[in-house]
C-alpha cells in the first residue's frame, strides 16, 4: 500500500470515527443479540421488524434522547459467544441496555455481565422459567412453557380426556413442558399413559407414533422446537392414521408458529394449542400492528410470537429510559417497570414484580384454513396467567 493511500485511509477512518462520535451525544444504545443468519435467521428478522414497527409507531426518541438499536448476530445456541458479544456491546459500543436472546443458554450466559455493568436485560424469547431467577436485571416479555402448558392441561382435562401421551423433544424446554403438563393434568384427575422424550435430531417419527398408538392415549401433548422437526412430526401424526383415528393433538403454540404454517399445510389443521399471541388476534391494536408491519415490509405473513416479544420488549425499554431520564442505572430501570401494565397487540400485559416475567392472557387456538391459508384462530382466553414455573425448583 502506498503512503498516500494509507494516509487517505487513516484520514477517512478518523473522519468516520469523529462523525459517529458526535452522533453519540443524546443517543441511548440498545444491544440486541439474536440469530440473524443460519437456521434460525427468521427469529432475528422478526425481532428486528418488531422493533422497527414499534419505532415507526412511537418515534425514535424518548425525552430528547434518540434510541438506537444495535444488532449482533448469534446464529445458534452458543453461551460463550453470547457473552463475548454482550461484552463487546457493553465495552465498545457502550450500550445501556441488552435485549433479544432466542435460546435459553445464551440468555443465561450474560447474567454475571449485566450484574457487573448494572445493565438491564430484556429477553424477547428464551422461555425457560429459571432464567429470571439468575439476575435481578432480567425482564422477560415472551412466555414460558409452564405458562402455556398449565391452562392447556386444565382445558384438556375438562374435555373429558383421561388418557394422554406426552411426546416432547429431549431438551430443557421440552422437559419443562412435559413436567408442567403431567403435574397439572394428573392434579385434575387425568392420567399420562406414556411420556416419550424424542431425540432433538430425530427425522423419522413413525416409531413414536406407533408407541402413542399402542399406549391407547385419547390425545397427545407434543412440544418440539419450531422448524423442520415439527413439520415431520405433524406429518407423521396425520400420515400414520392417528389423526384419522380421532386422537387429539394438543401442544404449546410454538409448533404452529405462523412462518411455518404454509409448509405444515393440512397436517397442521386441527391442532389445538395454547399461546400468548396469534397473528389473527382480534383487537384494534393488533390490526394496527400487523398493518404497520405490512406497510413497512411488504408482507405480514411472518408476524408471529417473536415479533410481539420484541415489540413489547421495545416498549419496556422505552419505559425504562423514560424512568431513568436517559441515565444508565440498571436496577432503577428494572424497578421502574415492576408491576407495569399496558395493552399490547396480544392483549393486556403486566410485569410481575417478583418474577419480572409478563403475566398475560393465554389463548386457546385451533389451527384451521381460512381464505386459502392456515391461521391460528383463538377460541378461548385464559386471562392473567403468571409464570407457573417460577421458582418451582428443579
Amino acid at each position: 500500500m502506498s503512503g498516500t493511500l494509507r494516509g487517505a485511509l487513516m484520514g477517512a477512518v478518523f473522519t468516520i470515527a469523529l462523525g459517529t462520535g458526535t452522533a453519540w451525544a443524546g443517543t441511548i444504545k440498545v444491544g440486541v443479540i439474536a440469530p440473524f443468519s443460519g437456521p434460525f435467521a427468521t427469529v432475528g428478522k422478526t425481532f428486528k421488524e418488531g422493533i422497527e414497527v414499534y419505532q415507526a409507531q412511537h418515534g425514535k426518541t424518548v425525552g430528547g434522547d434518540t434510541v438506537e438499536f444495535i444488532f449482533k448476530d448469534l446464529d445458534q445456541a452458543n453461551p460463550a459467544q453470547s457473552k463475548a458479544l454482550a461484552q463487546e456491546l457493553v465495552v465498545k459500543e457502550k450500550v445501556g441496555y441488552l435485549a433479544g436472546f432466542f435460546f435459553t443458554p445464551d440468555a443465561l450466559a450474560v447474567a454475571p455481565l449485566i450484574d457487573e455493568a448494572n445493565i438491564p436485560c430484556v429477553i424477547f424469547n428464551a422461555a425457560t422459567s429459571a432464567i429470571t431467577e439468575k439476575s435481578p436485571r432480567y425482564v422477560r416479555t415472551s412466555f414460558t412453557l409452564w405458562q402455556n402448558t398449565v391452562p392447556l392441561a386444565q382445558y384438556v382435562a375438562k374435555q373429558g380426556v383421561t388418557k394422554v401421551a406426552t411426546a416432547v423433544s429431549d431438551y430443557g424446554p421440552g422437559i419443562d413442558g412435559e413436567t408442567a403438563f403431567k403435574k397439572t393434568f394428573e392434579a385434575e384427575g387425568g392420567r399420562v399413559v406414556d411420556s416419550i422424550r424424542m431425540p432433538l435430531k430425530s427425522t423419522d417419527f413413525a416409531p413414536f407414533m406407533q408407541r402413542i398408538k399402542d399406549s391407547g392415549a385419547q390425545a397427545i401433548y407434543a412440544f418440539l422446537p419450531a422448524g423442520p422437526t415439527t413439520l415431520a412430526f405433524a406429518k407423521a401424526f396425520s400420515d400414520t392414521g392417528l389423526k384419522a383415528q380421532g386422537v387429539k393433538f394438543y401442544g404449546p403454540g410454538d409448533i404452529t408458529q405462523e412462518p411455518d404454517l404454509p409448509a405444515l399445510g393440512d397436517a397442521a389443521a386441527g391442532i389445538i394449542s395454547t399461546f400468548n399471541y396469534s397473528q389473527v388476534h382480534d383487537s384494534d391494536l393488533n390490526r394496527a400492528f400487523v398493518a404497520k408491519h405490512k406497510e413497512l415490509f411488504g408482507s405480514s405473513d411472518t408476524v408471529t410470537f417473536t415479533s410481539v416479544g420484541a415489540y413489547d420488549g421495545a416498549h419496556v425499554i422505552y419505559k425504562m429510559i423514560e424512568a431513568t431520564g436517559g441515565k444508565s442505572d440498571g436496577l432503577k430501570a428494572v424497578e421502574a417497570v415492576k408491576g407495569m401494565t399496558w395493552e399490547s397487540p396480544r392483549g393486556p400485559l403486566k410485569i410481575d414484580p417478583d418474577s419480572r416475567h409478563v403475566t398475560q392472557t393465554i389463548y386457546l387456538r385451533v389451527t384451521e384454513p381460512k381464505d386459502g391459508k392456515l391461521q391460528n384462530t383463538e377460541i378461548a382466553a385464559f386471562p392473567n396467567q403468571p409464570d407457573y414455573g417460577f421458582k418451582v425448583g428443579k
Partner: protein
Amino acid sequence: METVFGIAVDGVAYGMILFIISVGLSVTLGLMRVVNLAHGAFAMAAGYVASYAAQTMGLPYGLALVAAVLLTVVATLPLEKLLYRRIYGSANELRQVLLTIGLTFVIVAGINYLFGPTLKRIPLPEMLTGTLDLGPKSIPTHRAFVIGMGAATILALWWLLERTSFGIRLRAAVDDPAMAAALGIRTERLYMATFALGTGLAAMGGVLGAELLPLEPYYAIRYIVLFLAVVAVGGAGSIFGSAAAALTLGVVDTAGKYLIPNFGEFFFYAALILILFRWPHGFFQGRAA
C-alpha cells in the same frame, strides 16, 4: 408380534428413504472416488426446484420431480467440467473435501438468499396422501411409493452397471483409467455421465425424501452425516451394499426409538460402530454392483 411387524414395516420404509437419498453419494464416492460432500446440497437444490415448480408454477408432482432432476443435472454439469474434473482420483482427498464443503456453503447461502430460511414443502398429489392398510399396520401411501421407487432404483442401477456396455466401460475406467483410455474408452465423457447419474440420484432423493427430511437451507449440512453413514456401512460404490446398509440402519434406528426412545440416536451410532468394526470397508467392499 404386532410390535415386531410394526418395527419391521416402519424400519424398512425409513431405510428405503435413507437408501434413495444416499445411493447417489455411493455412486460418486465408489465409482468416481470423489468425496462429494455437496451431495446433500444437490439434493436440497432439487427439492427447492420441485417445490417451486409444484407450488408457484402449479406443475403436477410427477412433472415437478422430472423437472427438478433434469434441471439439477444440467446445472451441475458445468461444475463437473470446471471444478470436479480437477479433483478426481483418490490422491486428491483433501482437495475434494475442501472444494465440496465450500460448494455446500455457497449453495446453502444461495438458497437462503433466494428462498429464505423458512421451511418449504412439495405438495403431494391426492394419490400419494393418506394411508395404505397392511393388515395390522398401516403406512403412509407416500412411503409405500418411496419403497417402490427405491426397489426400482436398485434394479435399474444393477442392470445399468452390470449388464450394459456403459457399465462395463465404467468399471474398466474406474479400475485402471490409463489402460481404459489406451483401449479407446473416452474416460472423460464416461466420468461426466457418471457424475450426472450421481447428481440425478441425489436430486431424486431430495425430492422423494422431502416428506421425511423437510427442505430448509441447512438441509445440506444437517443430513450429510446420515448419508455418509449409509455409504460407509454399505461400502462405497456398492448398490446392494447401500441398500443393505440403509435397511439395517433404518430397522435398528426404528427399533431403538420404539423400544427405548430415551436412548435417542444411541442405537443408530452403536450399530454404525459395530458394523464398521466387523467390516471396516462396509458390507460390500467397492466391487460388486
